């Protein structure tokens, strides 16, 4: 079986008019880390919730290892592991008790689950805290505990929803290491959502950029960067005028976007083209005040396809509250 996850025209409409996920189709191959990248409210979590069978699609279908997510939900649930966005571990219980609870929900016999729980706690380096209540854990520890819980049933497919939400940079990097280590250890296929670009770049084999419920582009991180067709030159000018046309006529310039007075220019051979642009502008009497030249990053890919860099919170009140609780606990 090569295609582990397969979605065809998957759609979710809330309250009959809010289209959260709009006819998306994609497939994830065996052993891949597949990333869903997109701004807040793009439909990432809704997609994951459909795949993990807690939300029924309005239209379309999807299957995991050949099992339909609606008709064979029970089979799907046995095969997958889920690490949700929120910290779902019970604060009043210890880390160990939480893992055993998860194991019980999968019906794993105690003699096996006890061994596995210790093994997993060792792997995420929580063994010495196993008998401490989760309320004493830090954000990073909680995240690791969630990872361990999600792996108790040795899932074939692991779903990670914003695995590093609210964590500081060090903890985030450490979490990536755990994810890589776990993947190697258990040889799983991983489906993850994130809005951290460097996270997608560091972890994912393939990425789908999703916005307004639609997949805009899919590819490996380097494919996506290459698709931008060259380097990015950003310049600002002193004068308050639109000089897009002047820049566009410079040799090797492929595209110009005016973003509030600063120009994002796509060009091949950026280091040669940049001086030509300055020259062209000076001839017309404009003064360049800033210039930067970058080889494309995933960030550029992202901005290229989703347009804006800051997104209004398009979340429901409840999601927002849940996120706030998660963030608060992460900081605790």
């Amino acid at each position, binding site marked *: 079986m090569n295609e582990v996850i397969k979605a065809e025209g998957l759609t979710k409409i809330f309250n009959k008019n809010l289209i959260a996920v709009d006819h998306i189709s994609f497939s994830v191959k065996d052993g891949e880390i597949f990333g869903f990248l997109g701004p807040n409210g793009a439909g990432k979590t809704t997609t994951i919730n459909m795949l993990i069978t*807690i939300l029924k699609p309005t239209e379309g279908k999807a299957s995991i290892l050949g099992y339909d997510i609606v008709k064979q939900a029970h089979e799907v649930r046995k095969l997958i592991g889920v690490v*949700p966005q929120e*910290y*779902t571990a019970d604060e*009043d*219980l210890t880390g160990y008790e939480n893992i055993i609870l998860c194991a019980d929900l999968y019906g794993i016999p105690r003699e096996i689950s006890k061994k596995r729980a210790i093994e997993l706690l060792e792997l995420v380096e929580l063994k010495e805290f196993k008998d401490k209540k989760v309320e004493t854990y830090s954000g990073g520890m909680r995240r690791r505990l969630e990872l361990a819980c999600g792996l108790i049933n040795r899932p074939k497919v692991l779903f990670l929803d914003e695995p590093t939400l609210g964590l500081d940079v060090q903890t985030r990097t450490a979490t990536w290491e755990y994810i890589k280590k776990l993947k190697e250890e258990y040889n799983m296929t991983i489906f993850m959502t994130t809005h951290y670009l460097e996270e997608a770049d560091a972890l994912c084999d393939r990425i789908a950029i999703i916005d307004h419920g639609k997949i805009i582009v899919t590819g490996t991180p380097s494919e996506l960067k290459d698709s931008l067709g060259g380097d990015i030159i950003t310049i600002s000018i002193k004068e308050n005028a639109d000089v897009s046309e002047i820049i566009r006529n410079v040799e090797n310039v492929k595209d110009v976007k005016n973003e509030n007075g600063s120009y994002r220019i796509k060009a091949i051979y950026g280091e040669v083209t940049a001086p030509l642009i300055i020259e062209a502008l000076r001839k017309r009497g404009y003064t360049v005040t800033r210039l930067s030249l970058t080889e494309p990053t995933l960030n550029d890919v992202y901005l290229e396809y989703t347009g804006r860099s800051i997104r209004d919170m398009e979340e429901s009140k409840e999601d927002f509250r849940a996120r706030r609780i998660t963030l608060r606990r992460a900081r605790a």
Partner: protein
Amino acid sequence: MSSINEYRPSLLRGLWALTLRELKKWLKDPIMLLMFILQPLIWMGLLGKSMNIQGIFSSSSLSRIQIHDIEIPGKFLNLPIDKVIIPSAVISQLLQQMFSNISTTVMQNVFGVVDYFSYMAVGMVSMIVMTTTMFSGMSIVWDRRLGFLDKVLSTPVSRAAIIFAKILNATFRAIFQATVILILAYILGLQLSQTFTLFNILGVYAAIFLLSVGFSSVFLAFSIRSTRMERPMQFVSLITMPLMFASNTFFPISLMPEWIQIIARVNPLTYLTDAIRQLTILQLNISSLIIDFIFLSIFAVTLSIIGITLSWKYLTK
């Protein structure tokens, strides 16, 4: 390597795991546990002891009554004297004696027991059973908000286990609290009837179980749809008062106005309270006990069907 498909997550296994979680949460919070015990203790101490209904019949209640000497003219008695005087002191003494004799009879007729404390302590048990079962289903609001419910739903555990774990947990708590209150009440002077045996306790538990199942499943269905804790909380405080007072919890129904009696007759609390009284402090009347149990069963079955259906619909939507 063994395949994960081998494990069959059974309903009972999941049910026990989730129930155990709730109970652990509860037992690990000693302050909450203490409050659960303190609350009925305070109620019993204050209400049961302060509403000293027997005291009304004590001689001191008559202390300021104005009693005059009674003069009986001699001719009414066919006596050759002018008049007979019965001094007020004699009348007063007689009256007081009679009054305290009446006390026992009045209490027996109105409350069925001689002391109000025993009557009220049992009412207390059903009140606590009611509030505990209503509140304990509410934890699902948090489970949902913190994402725990979603995580559980993504596992192969039976959805029925999620619902029954909440109901079972409510019942366990109610039974635990009822036991504590009854023991405390006994220490504080609750008088058991001659028909009481330890076996009757099982009957008490059965009655509590029926009420708990009914209430907790309906409240679960209600809470599962609420995004905020405040809504079900407000609802509980709205209905506990009327349910408590329009019943025999603290006072006999027979003395209430007709319209309250109608409410009290359909109020499950009335039947729970009567069942527990029959089994503990009253001279056991089998036929009224059977009626109590029939009503409680109807209540439990109806409400749990409604509650479980609604919750099930929500969880599998």
